[in-house]
């Protein structure tokens, strides 16, 4: 039974890692990376390393996605400001959701 769980969780991790690489849009990649983090936590637990699993859960479930999505938002904002810079002083404002 142990071997079945180890194999299944590692295959899940390998699939999630491959999918994360082939999702080229960073915001959508963040969702896949969060699933990769959860999968790694399971794999660590079935390899009898709950300490590492906890560490991975803390980092992967909320912290890393939050940082990536905030970076994506900032990069988009900078690009928008640059594009609108020629058209007048009203650029860069606009309505945005937070």
């Amino acid at each position, binding site marked *: 039974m142990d071997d079945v769980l180890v*194999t299944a969780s590692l295959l899940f991790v*390998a699939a999630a*890692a491959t999918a994360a690489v082939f999702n080229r849009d960073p915001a959508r990649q963040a969702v896949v990376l969060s699933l990769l983090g959860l999968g*790694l936590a399971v794999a*660590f637990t079935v*390899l*009898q*390393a709950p300490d590492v699993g906890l560490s991975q859960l803390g980092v992967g479930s909320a912290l890393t996605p939050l940082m*990536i999505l905030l970076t994506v938002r900032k*990069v988009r904002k900078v690009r928008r400001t640059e594009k609108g810079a020629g058209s007048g002083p009203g650029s860069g404002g606009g309505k945005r959701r937070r």
Partner: protein
Amino acid sequence: MSVLPYAIAGWIFLAGLYGLATSRDLVHAVGCLSVAQSSTYVLLLAVGYRRGGTAPVFSDVKPGVRVVDPVVQALALTDVVVGATVTALLLALVVQTAKRHGTVDPDELFELRG
């Protein structure tokens, strides 16, 4: 079964490298780097695993039972958290690049340089 976990660690590492090298967006590249990094944790824990062993934490089992290797776990656990802060540093560099050059596409950045 005896090399499958090592092979999976190798696969994750190579997949991460491939994504890093072909990335068209620096934020995506940072994500791929963290994928490649996670392969090291899988490899370390696979090396330390012992069949039929349990976690080397004696809060709810008696000392003397068969346990897996705690040394590799200690190595992996600190690196997971420290790795996240290094990811943050790289993302901060990406923000700075976007501000300076108005793009985060490595190819366009290369052309800007001349």
